[in-house]
């Protein structure tokens, strides 16, 4: 399960994507993914907000992650 990284998330992790397999246990939900991300990279705690997109839609914490999903970490947006 590939996880795309943008903006400051890319800088914190140091790459443009990572694989969910890199965590000890593969996260099964959006909430779990956020938790694991914050554990592995404590700098995420300092952000104004942290969202996750599943298949290019904003996904609530309760959403379950399925094999083949395209997942993206969405730090605070600042377009415009």
């Amino acid at each position, binding site marked *: 399960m590939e996880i*795309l990284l*943008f903006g400051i998330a890319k800088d914190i992790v140091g790459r443009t994507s990572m694989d969910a397999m890199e965590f000890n246990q593969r996260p099964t939900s959006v909430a779990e993914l956020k938790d694991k991300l914050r554990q592995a990279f404590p700098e995420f705690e*300092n952000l104004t907000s942290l969202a996750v997109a599943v298949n*290019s839609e904003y996904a609530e914490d309760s959403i379950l992650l399925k094999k083949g999903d395209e997942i*993206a970490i969405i730090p605070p*947006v*600042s*377009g415009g």
Partner: protein
Amino acid sequence: MEEPIIEIVANLDTSQVFGELSHPGSGGICVFTGAVREFTNKQQVVSLEFETYEKMALGEMQKIAGEASKKWELNRIVIRHAVGVKQVQDPVVVVGASSAHRDACFEACRFLIDALKKRVPIWKKEHFSDRSVWVSAHP
């Protein structure tokens, strides 16, 4: 309403938007352009750099256009954002709407830019002479 024009581009052409929003039923056309300011909190900006999650950004822009066309009677909508490195005074975003009367296009145009700034996955890095900052990332 006709299909909205939704685009992410390397270079914004501000001269084309009137033609895109023009419509025989539109007496009013409102366009907002966002541009690079020279100073942020009194610090001189060297350049801005925009990146996007393009597939999702286009999807969110489509949704925003759809919401606007439900809220107001609009004939045309344009939402166009630039990515890459931009210099002071460069346009970075153009949003606009046209409608029979001016109330609707003004309100819709404001909604388009407010919603874009809130939801569309585009990130802006400010480059100063001594450092670079992802805008809004930290409280």
